[in-house]
């Protein structure tokens, strides 16, 4: 990843600092995302992994300011895109950015296209919203876009409706819409989860190709570690609304530090290995309402947990170059952690 080290010297395209997003439940706000900070460099693919309810989708919706109105709210922190704090932007200003500089693709290609408009109309809508060109030109652009995402008979497809296309094709249309204005950042929320593996392979290849040709950065949100290993440069692992580990992709897969990451990797059956028993993580993610206020949020399920884990909140700490984790075992301000490690408090 030498290219990344080079680009890393420039200012990152997106900086998220101490983001806190809350949801209103019975009149009170509870944070689904709690103090998340990370950078996305230009042309970088950052993967965000975690299980359902870990806050990965809420985080992406916060960046786009697409949280459900009146229920979800950014309660603290900063989101800086190209040097501007967009978390304070008005709706009107945000509309100028959304779809143009930052765009998003969603998990469900079936429900995120409007069934009553043609494919062409929906792509042109994006272009006409952001650029002053004629409808005719927009039509030509959308045909070219559809071709670039590998849709055959693009001239015909622009006249068709979403229900006439298969799942993979609809996801291609979504991608065409998302890249219509050549955004600098694409947020892809589980873009291949609803698709079959052979189609997933097509879509991942397509995303990677577009990222390279358009010099675009991608935040890829997924629960599939396989997908992350396949196309990401950097990975963020989230658990219960917090980042527990962040590293370059090679580092994370070869040298996972946080017990949660480690167990997560051992819990997946792999094609290349035979194991009799898979690793499991006992217990459940604490609910948003009963989230422990101090200590590590994984402590109640962690096989390496120490009594201190319940009272000391771990911070993200460097464990290697370009590798941070939030675990007391690796906390330099907690010298006992190192001793514990040596004593074999790590996971079997």
């Amino acid at each position, binding site marked *: 990843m030498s290219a990344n080290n080079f680009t890393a010297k420039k200012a990152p395209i997106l900086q998220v600092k101490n983001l806190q997003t809350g949801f209103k439940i019975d009149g009170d706000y509870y944070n689904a995302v709690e103090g998340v900070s990370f950078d996305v460099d230009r042309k970088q693919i950052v993967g965000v992994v975690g299980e359902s309810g870990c806050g990965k989708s809420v985080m992406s919706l916060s960046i786009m300011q697409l949280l459900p109105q009146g229920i979800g709210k950014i309660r603290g922190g900063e989101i800086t895109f190209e040097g501007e704090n967009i978390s304070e932007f008005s709706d009107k200003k945000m509309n100028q950015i959304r779809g143009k500089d930052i765009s998003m693709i969603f998990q469900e290609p079936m429900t995120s296209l409007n069934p009553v408009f043609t494919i062409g109309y929906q792509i042109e809508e994006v272009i006409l919203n952001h650029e002053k060109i004629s409808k005719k030109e927009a039509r030509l652009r959308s045909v070219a876009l559809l071709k670039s995402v590998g849709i055959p008979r693009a001239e015909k497809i622009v006249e068709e409706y979403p229900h006439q296309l298969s799942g993979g094709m609809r996801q291609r249309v979504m991608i065409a819409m998302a890249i219509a204005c050549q955004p600098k950042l694409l947020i892809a929320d589980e873009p291949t989860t609803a698709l079959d*593996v052979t189609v997933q392979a097509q879509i991942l290849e397509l995303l990677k190709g577009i990222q390279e040709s358009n010099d675009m950065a991608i935040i890829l949100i997924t629960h599939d570690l396989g997908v992350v290993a396949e196309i990401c440069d950097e990975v963020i692992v989230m658990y219960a609304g917090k980042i527990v580990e962040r590293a370059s992709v090679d580092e994370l897969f070869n040298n996972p530090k946080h017990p949660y990451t480690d167990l997560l990797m051992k819990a997946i059956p792999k094609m290349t290995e035979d194991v009799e028993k*898979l690793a499991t993580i006992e217990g459940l993610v604490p609910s948003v309402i009963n989230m422990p206020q101090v200590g590590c949020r994984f402590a109640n399920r962690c096989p390496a947990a120490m009594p201190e884990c319940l009272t000391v909140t771990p911070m993200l700490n460097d464990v290697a170059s370009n590798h941070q984790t939030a675990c007391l075992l690796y906390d330099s301000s907690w010298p006992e952690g190192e001793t514990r490690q040596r004593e074999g408090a790590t996971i079997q």
Partner: protein
Amino acid sequence: MTTRDFVQERIDSLEEREVLLDVQNLKTYYPVTGGFFKRVLGHVKAVDDISFTIRRGETLGLVGESGCGKSTTGRTILRLAKPTDGKILFNGKDITKVSGKKLQQARRDFQMVFQDPYASLNPMQMVGDIIAEPILNYEKRNKKELEKEIKALLTRVGLPEEAYYKYAHEFSGGQRQRIGIARALALNPKLIIADEPVSALDVSVQSQVLNLLKELQEEFDLTYLFIAHDLSVVKHMSDRIGVMYLGNLVEVASNKDLYREPLHPYTQALISAIPEPNTEIRKERIVLQGDVPSPQNPPTGCPFHTRCPMAMEVCSQKKPPLKEVRPGHHVACVLY
């Protein structure tokens, strides 16, 4: 004993077992109707002439992409879908045509674990009653004894005894799937058909359920037909694996052979398409073009020839039969 030895020993012991389920030339077509008089306009050939056997105590995995007919196969064996043609022999008895009381008796021996743990449990029933229902369908039981038995079963699948008095909505997805498994086990069946039992679950919970299914198999001498779209999950669970494409079985082989040496071009593409959580293996990828054709109007000849990178002229003319090309390794492709 290493895992390898364990696997080998298991394969050896399975070969001597008797065949529990024998499916012969099974076809399930769904009619497509239209117009005012609901005329039959055509058929969706969901399962189109497949044959396989499962020995007692064995796990046969069925993989394939959505719409390939793997779920319909499972449902047809349970007679939840009507077979159009072919034979299903269970324990030597033909169950293809039985109905009424006889079918009910036969069903005692095969149970199903469903995909969606949220939709497959009655929200109005107490968990204890959900599990008791299949038993009470067949036997009159003493209430106290039954309760004790069910509580023991709940403990066995990893739930607390108090779960008996709770309702489905009080449980997480993984716990609900455990309830579904307990219900399937209640009648002490011989065969369990698990249709995507973990696809709705998170990774950490998925591994718990997979481990549980494996333990139970050992303990109760169960036979599984394990249906899933995730190849790595199927590989972990199965002794033998059948790969389906568009209603056809294109390859059947032992777990080891299939992954070490896939023969059918579709299997090869499918295996190469799986993203592996390991950055050291950067695989040579076979990316298939296009989508799966509609099962209502499947291509003539080999069903895969429209997307096959190795298709030849003959492929579009004649459908290749499933042939044993190596011991225990069956494939339906003209290349072999």
